[in-house]
């Protein structure tokens, strides 16, 4: 029965009773089919657009590579479900990742969140194929038309196709979430590990800054910084990402610091010193990997909240500059048409809810898997 997965990935899982993974895989395949049906007919013009439409573009190519990659992933998973990889004790015996995977799989809500996150990421990657129109082109349909065939989510007041805008918005919103969290997690880990390891005045100084920044309400701080740059004439997605990253590291740094404080008293750190390792190497190679588990959990939860903050900023008109579509910006666009065109706000709003919820589920699942005390409760 497991071979059924080779025909349709997910079918094997489903027949064997693994409903969540089965439906997840079938959903991925559905996305692939959708992208192929909607996009492959336009493939030549997407990949090699005529010079008068802007010439060469990178993201159709990214989408094509992603399509192939996702297909490979689906069929590989189905194949491995049928014929598991031969167990090779030399290679991977009880590595922490293997253990983490095992624990994570037991948590159904976490797996559900993971599939949802994957669907969002795949949607974002395949957007050039799936979205029927360019997000910023006006008058592709009538103004303010309700959802209908051809305009699945309706159109806005300029006649832009809302479905295309929401799809492209997913790319921007998700990228902002990932990159900003990557920046803040890196910075927070750096600050926290230095403070925790060296202690004393270094610790007091860094933690003083952290506490100070934590005591400022984030949104107000963001408004002030973005407003400042706006008045100086700078506005770009890049700026928003960096600012979101630079204002979100304090939580991580406190987590990492407390971890390092207890880790550095352990004997293996003394043993590292006795081997003659320099301080930076002890921190980077030996301490940080041991402190990483809570950072991963925090980061996956932070992606959701960063998407929310970006949406709030865009809603307030201080986010990514128009006409670039992000979910928050689209909600902002629809504000004036709540009575006549509620769909403009509803669909991007639903996407925000779905994205944040799935990142939170994923984060909770990871926390349960990484924290031995919470194991076995699901």
């Amino acid at each position, binding site marked *: 029965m497991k071979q059924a997965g080779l025909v349709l990935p997910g079918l094997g899982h489903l027949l064997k009773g693994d409903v969540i993974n089965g439906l997840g895989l079938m959903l991925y395949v559905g996305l692939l089919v959708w992208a192929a049906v909607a996009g492959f007919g336009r493939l030549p013009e997407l990949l090699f657009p005529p010079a008068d439409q802007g010439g060469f573009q990178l993201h159709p190519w990214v989408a094509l590579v992603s399509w192939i990659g996702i297909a490979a992933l689906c069929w590989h998973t189905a194949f491995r479900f049928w014929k598991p990889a031969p167990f090779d004790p030399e290679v991977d015996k*009880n590595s922490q990742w293997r253990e983490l995977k095992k624990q994570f799989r037991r948590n159904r809500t976490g797996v559900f969140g993971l599939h949802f996150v994957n669907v969002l990421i795949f949607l974002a990657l395949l957007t050039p194929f799936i979205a029927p129109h360019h997000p910023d082109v006006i008058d592709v349909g009538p103004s303010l038309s309700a959802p209908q065939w051809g305009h699945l989510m309706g159109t806005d007041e300029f006649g832009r196709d809302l479905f295309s805008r929401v799809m492209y918005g997913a790319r921007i919103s998700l990228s902002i979430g990932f990159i900003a969290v990557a920046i803040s997690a890196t910075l927070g880990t750096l600050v926290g590990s230095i403070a925790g390891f060296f202690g004393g005045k270094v610790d007091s100084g860094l933690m003083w800054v952290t506490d100070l920044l934590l005591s400022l309400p984030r949104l107000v701080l963001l408004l002030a910084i973005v407003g400042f740059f706006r008045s100086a004439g700078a506005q770009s997605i890049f700026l928003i990402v960096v600012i979101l990253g630079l204002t979100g590291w304090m939580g991580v740094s406190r987590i990492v610091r407390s971890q390092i404080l207890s880790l550095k008293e352990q004997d293996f750190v*003394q043993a590292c010193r*006795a*081997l003659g390792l320099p301080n930076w190497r002890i921190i980077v190679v030996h301490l940080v990997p041991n402190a990483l588990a809570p950072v991963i959990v925090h980061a996956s939860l932070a992606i959701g909240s960063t998407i929310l903050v970006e949406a709030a900023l865009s809603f307030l008109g201080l986010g990514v500059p128009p006409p670039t579509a992000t979910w928050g910006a689209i909600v902002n666009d629809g504000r004036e048409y709540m009575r006549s065109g509620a769909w403009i706000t509803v669909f991007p709003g639903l996407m925000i809810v779905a994205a944040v919820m799935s990142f939170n589920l994923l984060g909770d699942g990871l926390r349960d898997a990484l924290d031995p005390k919470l194991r076995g409760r699901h």
Partner: protein
Amino acid sequence: MSQPILELRDLRTWFRMEDGIAKAVDGVNYAIPSGQTLSVVGESGSGKSVTALSVMGLIPCPPGIEAGGEILFEGQDLRKANEAQRRAVRGNQIAMIFQEPMTSLNPVYRVGDQIGEALRLHKGMTGKEAHEYSIHMLDKVGIPKPSQRVDEYPHQMSGGMRQRVMIAMALSCDPRLLIADEPTTALDVTIQAQILELMNTLQEDFGTSILFITHDLGVVAEVSDHVAVMYAGKVVEHADVVTLYDAPQHPYTIGLFKSLPDIESRSAKLEVIPGVVPSPLEFPSGCRFRNRCAFANERCAAEEPVLRSVGEGHTVACHAVEEGRL
């Protein structure tokens, strides 16, 4: 006799505490002849571990104070070396193994990677060479199936096994001196015997000198050539192992031997040395042992005894011994 591998001259390591200065190590002198084993014995708080950490340069300053003295390692004074020079010596020429094998290995790395780390750092080996050499070292320390064990994580190993890994790690760079800080205290007795035997064998193979720190006089007899007895931050008696066991001189050393349980005499009560080690914040004047010593007199309170020779390579710091009052 050739130049000793390690010689401590009047070594002082103090700690700045909230209520004063704790003189944990306060004028320690001893030397380890090349290729031999010196055991340092003493109660908890006698400063034996701090001495070892001072040699490694692992005392955090502050609160530690390198208050003086010389650490001559092959003639080079490590106290005068800077951090980079000390790091080049640590792990490479002087290696150390610790008391707690359960926590002395990093839980997130395979043991092979941890043994290999020092090799890559000090010997410039590539990852593959270091991996091969780690297998060789694991074989040397008597771990069965080393080519499998090398890829295991510390939590998959028992305490004795991990201590073997620690020894492999310490000896991998072929150090001239190995400092073993109570390496068998946390192990049960059968494993303890195996580890001691292993260390003796490896010393013959590698020609390493060993500084062995312990409070277990039974272990001392197993491994050492020479013994230094420490009390309250000072060496009170120093002799080769046979002399010390046959004819201990210092009242403290005699007390230590008396407090060993004797399987033959079965006396109802174990003899103890009355009192406790004085706090390093306020040592008594004169001889630091006088509060607990049956032979103390006014001179012991007034004047601090120094190590004096009482026989071939046998030195004792005690007025009573000197005056023949014992």
